[in-house]
């Protein structure tokens, strides 16, 4: 049986762990709230963008000359963007993305396609490098607080790769955020941009009335609704300049959701780590009492034994 000092040491080290994991849980929770806010901030922008695009598309009639809308008939080179985190200690957050990414790669290779990896986050970058995969583009250092400029940089690189024919399709694998307790791995086709996503049906539902963007009403609005719109440049060209923004916006959303998922996963992982530490402390405290009792018993026996020997 361990002696008292050993058990005491273990208790204090587990107590430290409990304290650290508790602190990490709280930090993650605070950051998570901010990440959720950022998702909410994006919504009015994305909605207004859809509404404008739709209007321009109605005016233009057709959507042409937008290379990122063109679906390639044969996909020879599949681009896979893995969205992971910069840090671990978040349960299966990073591992799930990697597993799905490698599964998709194997499937593509079996179909005779070439695979081109892009990766966000140090964890994914490190794991792919370890597996000796060639990484076409890698972005790190912002995963718990992504800015729109980060998304734009990635969007630009993916779009360029698509237009220049380095990839024929880009799939994004990321953790979709539902709640602090629920995230799941989701796959999204980023390029070509799905036309339905931009101007098709279903857009109306997204621009629905939730009071965030109020359409003006009244006499002037009615007059303007019937009047001609000025388009600078003309609607078709305008559309061609706006559609690439969809890549940046949906990437930004992806990064934000991934950040929220990472923080949620870390919060959950740290909470259960703290709970485990708690159980361990209880067990060790029991053990400690037992050890102490054994020592006391031992001492009494010794005293009694000694007295008997003297008597």
């Amino acid at each position: 049986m361990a002696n008292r000092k050993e058990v005491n040491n273990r208790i204090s080290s587990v107590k430290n762990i409990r304290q650290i994991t508790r602190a990490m849980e709280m930090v993650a929770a605070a950051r998570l709230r901010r990440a959720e806010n950022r998702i909410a901030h994006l919504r009015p922008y994305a909605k207004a963008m859809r509404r404008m695009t739709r209007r321009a598309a109605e005016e233009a009639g057709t959507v042409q000359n937008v290379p990122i809308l063109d679906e390639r008939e044969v996909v020879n080179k599949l681009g896979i963007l893995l969205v992971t985190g910069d840090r671990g200690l978040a349960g299966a957050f990073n591992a799930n993305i990697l597993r799905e990414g490698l599964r998709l790669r194997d499937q593509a290779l079996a179909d005779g396609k070439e695979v081109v990896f892009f990766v966000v986050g140090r964890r994914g970058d490190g794991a792919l490098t370890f597996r000796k995969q060639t990484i076409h583009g890698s972005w790190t250092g912002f995963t718990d607080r992504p800015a729109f400029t980060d998304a734009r940089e990635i969007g630009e690189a993916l779009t360029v790769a698509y237009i220049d024919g380095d990839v024929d399709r880009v799939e994004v694998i990321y953790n979709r955020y539902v709640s602090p307790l629920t995230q799941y791995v989701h796959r999204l086709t980023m390029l070509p941009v799905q036309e339905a996503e931009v101007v098709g049906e279903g857009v109306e539902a997204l621009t629905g009335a939730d009071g965030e963007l109020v359409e003006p009403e009244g006499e002037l609005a009615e007059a303007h609704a019937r009047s001609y719109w000025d388009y600078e440049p003309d609607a078709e060209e305008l559309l061609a300049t706006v559609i690439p923004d969809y890549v940046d916006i949906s990437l930004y959303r992806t990064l934000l959701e991934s950040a929220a998922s990472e923080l949620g996963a870390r919060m959950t992982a740290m909470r259960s780590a703290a709970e485990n530490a708690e159980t361990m402390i209880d067990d060790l405290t029991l053990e400690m009492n037992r050890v102490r009792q054994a020592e006391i018993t031992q001492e009494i026996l010794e005293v009694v034994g000694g007295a008997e020997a003297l008597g």
Partner: protein
Amino acid sequence: MAGETKFTVEVLTPEGAVFNGEVVQLSTRTVVGEIGILANHVPVMAALKPNLLRLKISDSETREWAQAHGVLQVFASHAQLLVEEVHTVDQLDAALLESQKSDAEARLADPESGEASKEAAERDLERINLFLELARGA
């Protein structure tokens, strides 16, 4: 001029709203050229170039921002600007912009770069150059 007619302006970025209120005049630049919007302007939709965005709120108050690419819609005396980035001029970091500039120029000059890559670099430069100009002029 007292009692000028005002109209509402909303400036939105993906990271949140920057301005939402009444103004007398809005001025910026579209792909076609400088544009100034007053109340009761005809409906417009325009692609915006990086420029100094100026909102005249009253005779004594004008607010200014460095604005990146975006879209403007004016409808029924309500203007909506969707802009990738908006900064007040004093938020701009000239040193950082310099390094972004040389990065974009390198991409533009790289013979390996494809057509799309050059176009993207040119678009970046448009923004970086304007921001730099404003940062230095401040």
